[in-house]
């Protein structure tokens, strides 16, 4: 069993070696001339301000969750759409059930104000 995977292991080993060689070569051979300017974090050329410990609004989380739900819906819909003739009525019924469940949750989230940024 292992012999079948030997090329794969070899490739992993080569990848590790190459990465180590390039990285250590850059570390040991490259010229070093640090200035305060060079050591500041790069933020699109502008001076960085403020701290990094900003608390993002919890609304991003709700929006992200809703996005994931409908993203997954799309992931399910595409394969279904490509074979829906073969699946027939059973497939249609199953997909409709799925969509109804999603629709109810969307209505719930909407009515409860999850889609409004400012209440």
């Amino acid at each position, binding site marked *: 069993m292992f012999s079948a995977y030997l090329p794969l292991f070899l490739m992993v080993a080569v990848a590790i070696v190459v990465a180590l060689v390039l990285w250590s070569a850059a570390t040991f051979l490259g010229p070093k001339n640090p200035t305060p300017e060079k050591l500041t974090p790069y933020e699109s050329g502008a001076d960085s301000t403020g701290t990094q410990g900003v608390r993002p609004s919890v609304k991003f989380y709700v929006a992200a969750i809703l996005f994931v739900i409908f993203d997954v819906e799309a992931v399910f819909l595409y394969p279904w759409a490509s074979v829906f003739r073969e699946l027939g009525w059973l497939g249609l019924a199953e997909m409709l059930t799925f969509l109804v469940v999603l629709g*109810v949750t969307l209505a*719930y989230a909407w009515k409860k104000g999850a889609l409004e940024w400012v209440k």
Partner: protein
Amino acid sequence: MTALFALAPLVLLLVGGLLIMLVDAFAKERVEVSALVSTLLGASFVVAAGSLLADPNPSGLPAEITRYLAVDATGYFTDVVLTVAALIATLAAGSYLREHELERPEIYLLLLLSTFGAMVLARAADLIVLFIGLETMSLAVYGMIAMRRNNARSIEAATKYFLLGSFAAAIFLFGAALLYGATGGTSIAAIRDAIRGGHAEPALVMLGLVFTLAGFAFKVAAAPFHGWAPDAYEGAMIPVTGFMSVVVKAAAFASLLRVFTGVFGDPLLMHPTTGWPTLVAALALLSMLVGNLGALGQKNIKRILAFSGIAHAGYVLVGFASLHAVPEDATAAILYYFLAYAGGTGLALASLVAFGSKGLEAVDVDDLVGLGKRHPLLALPMAIAMLSLLGIPPTAGFFAKLFLFQAAAQAGGIFAWLALAGVALSVVSGFYYLRIVVALYASEPAEGAVVARPMRSGYVLLAMVFGSALVVKLGVMPGLYLDLALEAGRGLFH
């Protein structure tokens, strides 16, 4: 269509849950969601119990359903256990949340959908469906624990449980992937056939089963996968603790029962020489030790019940370890134990809800001192629950332990010693269970001490009456329920 009727307990919860969501969102006035959800759970319970008594093994169902969800007596039995436990938790929540001004309709919906996930988990005949059920159940529980947003303990509990729970889910999934890789199937029947036919790499199967076992052991809080339980139980609200300690545990155990009896199929594959019974026996012994000894030093009642839950997971695992020798008896004993444990722990936590009121919540054993003298009738269910968890006749717990240890004794060898250890550690457990009874009935509060004041609410009283009736009935006439459990367990062996 017949399939929809056969799965009515699940369909009711799902359709009803979606309708309640819509009603809650669109109703002009405030809706009593707790009443709606408990009615729905009650209906599901009645349908499941009716199916179990009338037609426990419906035939002629399409394979598209039975390949993924088992429709058999075991399924109806677990439905009954899960709906009973969820009903007690919902009724307790109906009182608790209003009294402590935490009322939010979301928690009942999460509870309902979590119960649905638990029922899917308990019926899953395919590892993918199993995982979906597991996550549906768990994600809702994380949300329910975190519901008290401005309470630091509750957030701590939710974070701990969420992180460890995700790890456990990943470990389970890894095991499932290994099983799939070794056997080429995700359905439990396909995995069994591949193992029986000798088409599977034994090392991969072994590794896969060990990982899935670890995932389940986490969910049921069996030692050494129990570390999260005391903190999570303590941080959650009392009704949520009740839900977690019974529904999650029973569903995970039911699923483990299906996977183990299903994958191993015939008792020969579970023979002690394969090492499985010994491994499970080690888990059982460790859980009984950690649970019973850990509970001794606790003051907080939720923590005591968390450790008691670990110990009870150990007792159930004793039954799992004896599956190889007496498959049908051990399965029936395990199923019966679910019902007894659900009644006992659910009743204890419902009583704990009833003992407290706003600002005077019952938390520690000291808060209960003298309560039985001031309110003899109200304190009685707690005493019944403690006696049942300890295993004193005539309560459910006595026969539950009797059947389990009997099965282990029949298995002989190290399993008989395991049963003996279980009995010895049950005696130890008397110390912490009876301490609560003594606090209730046989001691007086110190002068000026702050004690819990019972609330006045109908919901929790209903839960207490229901739970007490269940625990006592199981203890007075165990035969009827044992027959049902035997009937339910038989479906797993064919």
